[in-house]
């Protein structure tokens, strides 16, 4: 899960990385950087679709993200070797 500020909500950490590190170091092609929070969740589920559904339900019910300011993207993959 990647939780990040919605478009239009300023994100000062990414701005600082952009202005004070990246842009000063010759990477002028980089236009924007947004920092966020990353959670890797291991789920036991019969198939990827139901795993995704479960995680989305958890995010919404427990307010893992604050819908006033954040968006939450859930992407899914298999645990290597299982």
């Amino acid at each position, binding site marked *: 899960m990647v939780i990040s*500020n919605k478009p239009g909500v300023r994100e*000062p*950490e990414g701005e*600082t990385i952009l202005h004070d590190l990246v842009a000063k170091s010759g990477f002028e092609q980089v236009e924007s950087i947004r920092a966020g929070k990353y959670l890797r969740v291991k789920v036991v589920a019969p198939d990827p679709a139901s795993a995704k559904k479960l995680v989305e339900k958890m995010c919404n019910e427990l307010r*893992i993200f604050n819908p006033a300011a954040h968006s939450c993207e859930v992407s899914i993959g298999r645990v290597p070797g299982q």
Partner: protein
Amino acid sequence: MRVAVIRFPGSNCDLDMMAALKTIKGIEPDLVWHEDAALGRGGYGAVILPGGFAFADRLRAGAIAANSPAMAGVKRLADRGVPVLGVCNGFQILVESGLLPGALLRNSTLKFVCKWTHVRVENTRTPFTSGLSEGQVLSMPIAHGEGRFFLPHAELAELEKNGQVAFRYCDSSGRTTPGSNPTGTLHNIAGVCNKAGNVVGLMPHPERAAEALLSPLGHPDGALVLSSLLVRSGGRRRA
């Protein structure tokens, strides 16, 4: 009036809040542990969520505490119109529990800001501003890293229209200038209330400004916020 001060693991302003409340004649505070869904001995006339770093701010400031058993009890009381105040981390918990709208994001400076501020009273219909007058300027300190109040544009306009902004950062003469905004908070917002007005959150610490000795200006302004609990709107003292 009996007041419950909810203590979460990581609260660190709970005892200061208790001490400040004890200086106000007519208020009898109790500490209540966050796992106590029944809220101690019950019968509270108000609830206060103090500042600190509940659950070490993990996930997001206030996000885990918002699901503590005591918060179910706080919601029940809030729905019945009982006054609820969240200070600093307590404000973050109220926002994360959905009792107040919006989000408190990282300060635009990315810095933890610890300083005395001026705030202007924007509305006196809440139980924590009823002893104050509109436009009154108070001096109270802030100490937080996540206090930038945010709401999407349309919802912010609605909040303003409903008069739900309780306090705004200002300069010493009450002007809300960019220079008096310590965190990049939208519209200089330092405190808001719910639609009904009984749930209030504010980032500055009234308990740290509750005695003249604590204030660089010698003004016990924080006590005026807390003692408002004993004043009905219209200025009469509550029985």
